[in-house]
């Protein structure tokens, strides 16, 4: 203890220097390749930066809220916004519900081979989205696709999954749920394991049925996890890009039925080089994600 105290003044200066040196590479990279671009993104969104700007930055002019005004009058933007909300509001809760159901099944005391089922359910999570979407594109084929063959087994009519504007988004949601549910399932399993079984036994003695046990014990115990899972799922789903890109060959079709906000940003910015306009789309996405996160945090706090 005495040597420690004696060393302190000299040590703390060396320590501070080392600390700053150790975080410097990370902070330098984050500032240069994230913070600066984010700030520049805000500025870019207020300019008419386009293909000429790429050659010569000085051709870009300040247009203030011009891009935002143009966005609000752009029916394709509204379509992309509506599609994205459709995906988040239907696909998000569905993903979380499937994850929770799978976790509860896996956690049941009677179940054998838990490790095997967990591995299987988790496998889609680690796989490459593009490769998986290529496969699903064929599973959704109206004539040869496995999905319609399965529907036919049950006497159900064929669905033109990716060709019919009404079915294209459900098709993307179905694939996304299949791909992602294993991730949140793992988080829920960890949460379920931390609930003492004595709680359920006591509830059963008091005559509580399965539904009541779920509502009165499971859900309250999982609340912090539900919030965490809800927020990360929402943030991820608002950024949907690869799924519609690959399933629709980069078009967002049919009739823009699967065009997402990020896809629209990509097309505007990197295909047509309307960079200022695309930056405004990205900004809208940021505001939506921020507001969505704050709402979820508020909702969870109120319930507690």
């Amino acid at each position, binding site marked *: 203890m005495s040597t420690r105290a004696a060393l302190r003044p000299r040590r703390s200066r060396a320590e501070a220097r080392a600390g700053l040196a150790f975080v410097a590479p990370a902070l330098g990279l984050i500032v240069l390749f994230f913070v600066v671009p984010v700030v520049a993104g805000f500025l870019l969104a207020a300019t008419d930066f386009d293909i000429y700007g790429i050659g010569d930055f000085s051709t870009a002019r300040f247009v203030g809220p011009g891009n935002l005004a143009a966005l609000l009058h752009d029916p394709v933007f509204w379509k992309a916004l509506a599609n994205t909300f459709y995906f988040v509001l239907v696909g998000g809760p569905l993903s979380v519900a499937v994850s929770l159901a799978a976790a509860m099944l896996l956690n049941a005391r009677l179940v054998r081979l838990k490790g095997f089922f967990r591995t299987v359910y988790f496998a889609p999570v*680690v796989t490459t989205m*593009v490769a998986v979407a290529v496969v699903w594109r064929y599973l959704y084929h109206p004539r040869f696709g496995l999905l319609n063959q399965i529907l036919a087994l049950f006497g159900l009519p064929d669905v033109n999954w990716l060709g019919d504007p009404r079915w294209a988004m459900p098709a993307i949601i179905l694939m996304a749920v*299949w791909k992602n549910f294993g991730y949140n399932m793992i988080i829920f399993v960890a949460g379920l394991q931390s609930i003492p079984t004595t709680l359920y036994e006591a509830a059963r003695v008091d005559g509580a049925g399965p539904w009541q046990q779920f509502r009165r014990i499971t859900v309250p115990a999982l609340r912090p996890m539900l919030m965490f899972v809800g927020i990360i799922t929402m943030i991820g789903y608002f950024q949907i890009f690869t799924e519609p*890109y690959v399933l629709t060959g980069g078009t967002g079709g049919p009739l823009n039925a699967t065009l997402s906000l990020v896809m629209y940003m990509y097309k505007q910015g990197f295909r047509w080089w309307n960079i200022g306009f695309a930056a405004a789309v*990205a900004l809208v996405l940021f505001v939506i994600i921020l507001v969505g996160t704050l709402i979820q945090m508020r909702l969870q706090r109120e319930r507690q």
Partner: protein
Amino acid sequence: MRKLVPALALHLVLAIGAVATLLPFAWMVSASLMHRGEASKWPPSFLPSRATLENYRELFERLDLGRCFLNSAFVAVVSTALALFIVSLAGYAFAKLRFPGRSKIFKALLTAMVIPAQVAMLPLFLLLRTMGLVNTYWGVIIPSLAPVFGIFMVRQYALSIPDELLDAARVDGAGEFLIYRRIVFPLLRPILVTFGVFSFMGAWNDFMWPLIVLTDDRKYTLPVALANLIGEHAQDIELMTAGSVLTVLPVLLLFLVLQRTYVEGITLGGIKE
């Protein structure tokens, strides 16, 4: 005996779920082994009449996907190796070394995680263009070298390193970098393996950023090459599924080998894909 029926029902539901989860993979492998045109015959069959490797041969020989495989491997290995070094240094410093502004900077980093990467993409592209990094592997790698979730993961783990251990080394006259290299780095190994798996898979599976940065198809990573290929070869189901197998196989194998580490990483919390 009373538990037999619910146990059977539970396993039945789980088994149906497992079949539904595995079916797309099973069909992918099966179709990749079919002769050209076999997957789009009527009536469709699930298994190849006679398995063939001709699709894989064509991928490597005519479409040069082996090159894209190496591109992907290079990008994933290099970005993971560099990120491991950068993230372990920063995570350790945020946990164990006192320096001015430490907690403020750390909080700012965590808050910045709500900003979606897309906000930075357009300016980042212009920045990399002026640096001459568009259409290079470094343009793909550089933006992902200091992921905040990785710094957070390492920091949480490093908090448990006892101060006495570090102080004892200091009393012995060890410099701070030596302490990091000889004491801290080995102690962090479990969390670094977890982070490394996340980082490798993230880089291997990434699509949007490589799609933006890479313009020359000889430099494409596998996902970009695959998404590009389906434009011309959408009808060649057998060929495209073979490409999918090639893309998915390395990450799936890595997961099967290191799944415990990977799954533990998720339950540590705070991890964003």
